[in-house]
């Protein structure tokens, strides 16, 4: 192993400490046997996790957030996969700016995206809150779907599709029986990235939630304004665990390098 310069090593430790310390603090605070957020924890209890599930608003928003993440990501894949396919298949013939159009939602500050979605989808089209949230989240995660599925499709040799067609397989069927199975890993990766993005989103949701319908991160903010108790920490830990869990599944099935590729 190459020797690491001590200053560089110290710097690396510092960076990791800065990245991980807040998480350690939150985990500590979530098990503190106090009625207020504190670190280091005083006492040890899982009471706040229990309390979390006793609050109806948390239970409700967890379900909303989960369904929203599944639905929004699903909707986005429904648009994103055909878009990525078209961009990869007719790469040469399409205007060069077109792929960038699908990345725009990432480039626009999320808060602006949220506001404009509120103006256009919620008040403009007058969609019900849940529908507006669904559309908003689909737009929010669309760039991930197009990019990640697109990365897979760019590796795909389209003469494979032509081979299927030449053997008597109609184009639409060739897409499902030959193209899709070979970019499956990309679709799964896109789903996971999009799912995590959606479930953790605040900026877009805050503009689109309304009376009776909220998402978990928005509920966390609302709760914190009223009660500064360790429930906030425990729900944060829970969100973190979900993310880590999903990442672990990715690591074991596809390898994490898949997402950074």
């Amino acid at each position, binding site marked *: 192993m190459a020797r690491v310069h001590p200053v560089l090593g110290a710097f690396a430790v510092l960076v990791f400490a800065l990245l991980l310390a807040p998480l350690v603090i939150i985990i500590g605070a979530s098990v503190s046997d106090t009625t207020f957020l504190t670190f280091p924890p005083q006492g040890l209890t899982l009471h706040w996790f229990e309390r979390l599930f006793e609050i109806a608003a948390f239970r409700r928003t967890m379900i909303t957030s989960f369904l929203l993440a599944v639905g929004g990501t699903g909707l986005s894949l429904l648009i994103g996969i055909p878009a990525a396919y078209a961009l990869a298949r007719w790469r040469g013939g399409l205007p060069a700016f077109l792929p960038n159009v699908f990345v725009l939602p990432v480039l626009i500050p999320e808060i602006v995206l949220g506001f404009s979605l509120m103006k256009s989808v919620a008040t403009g089209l007058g969609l019900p809150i849940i529908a507006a949230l669904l559309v908003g989240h689909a737009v929010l995660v669309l760039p991930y779907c197009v990019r990640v599925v697109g990365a897979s499709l760019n590796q795909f040799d389209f003469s494979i599709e032509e081979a299927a*067609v030449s053997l008597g397989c109609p184009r639409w069927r060739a897409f499902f029986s030959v193209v899709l199975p070979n970019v499956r890993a990309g679709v799964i990766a896109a789903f996971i990235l999009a799912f995590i993005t959606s479930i953790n989103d605040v900026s877009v949701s805050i503009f689109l939630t309304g009376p009776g319908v909220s998402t978990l991160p928005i509920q966390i903010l609302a709760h914190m304004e009223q009660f500064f108790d360790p429930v906030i920490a425990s729900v944060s830990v829970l969100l973190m665990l979900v993310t880590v869990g999903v990442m672990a599944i990715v690591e074991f099935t596809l390898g994490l390098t898949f997402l950074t590729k």
Partner: protein
Amino acid sequence: MSVSLTLAGVSAHYGSTLVLENLDLHVAEGELVALLGASGCGKTTTLRLVAGFLQPSAGTIRLGERDLTRLPAHSRNIGLVFQTYALFPHLTVRDNVAFGLKQRGVAAAERARRAEAMIATVGLEGLADRHPANLSGGQRQRVALARALVIDPPLLMFDEPLSNLDAKLRIDMRVEIRRAQRDRGTTALYVTHDQEEAFSISDRVAIMSRGRIEQLGPPEELYSRPANAFVANFVGFSNLVPMRAVTEAGDAVRLEMQGGATLDLPRARFAVPAREVIFAARAEGLTVAREGRGIPATLGLRTYLGRAYQYRCTTAAGEIVANGPLSEPLEPGTRAVLVPEPDHCAILRAE
């Protein structure tokens, strides 16, 4: 089952660019015709038009009695072998080969049996359960061939099938492809940029450039009697010298080149197509000699080819490449004459 392929007046465009111009091509029953040319000459476009991946802007494509022109690609029943093999990565060798049968509604058991038989035919026994990723390049190309053959198509098409293989394997595979095509008597269209490959595998070769067929004929004819300067240059007539046919005296054709030197060629072997002609000669078609009747030249750079020396020579008509005997290496600067060897010369109409 053997049918002929006929392209009549076929044109194709990419956007506003004309890539194929009014192409006529007839491939007879059981015949293998190679389309030969540099990239961008229209050979692959022709194949893709026949396959149905492109639509012609004019003309008709017929396979036997069937008009393919407006038929969707998946209904054309053509066996296609691709340069990149284009095997289905997620399927085993068996399922790759059986894919076309599955599309035709052949029952699973029958499908497996015919796939296995075809896998054996191409010499891949025991590999049926492998995935393409675990095969060598040569094995992959055999799977691709088996996959195209198993549907028993009336037409086989090959799109540079050997370009990704190493030299030795390329020669073996080319023999196998030819044998498979011959044994079945299947009509075939074969696209390549490799002249040796085209000449060795085909009944006839079409040399293409700029979206047109420059010459179509048996390899021997293209090799010895090129129709024009492009084909001549393509098949290795590296010297193309403009000349004027002056007289046809006795049994000789007399050509006069710039600077007044003349060449006499046997009239029995050469027709004179026009007054202004191009004298075409391979390097071995001009022998460097100290004296004799031929093109006066000053010898330049000499290279050793094993069977002869080759010289870059300066003549009144520019640089000419000619071979000289191993028995007598000549130094640069030597005054010599280049004596024509009729077997490796041609007289073409000037364009």
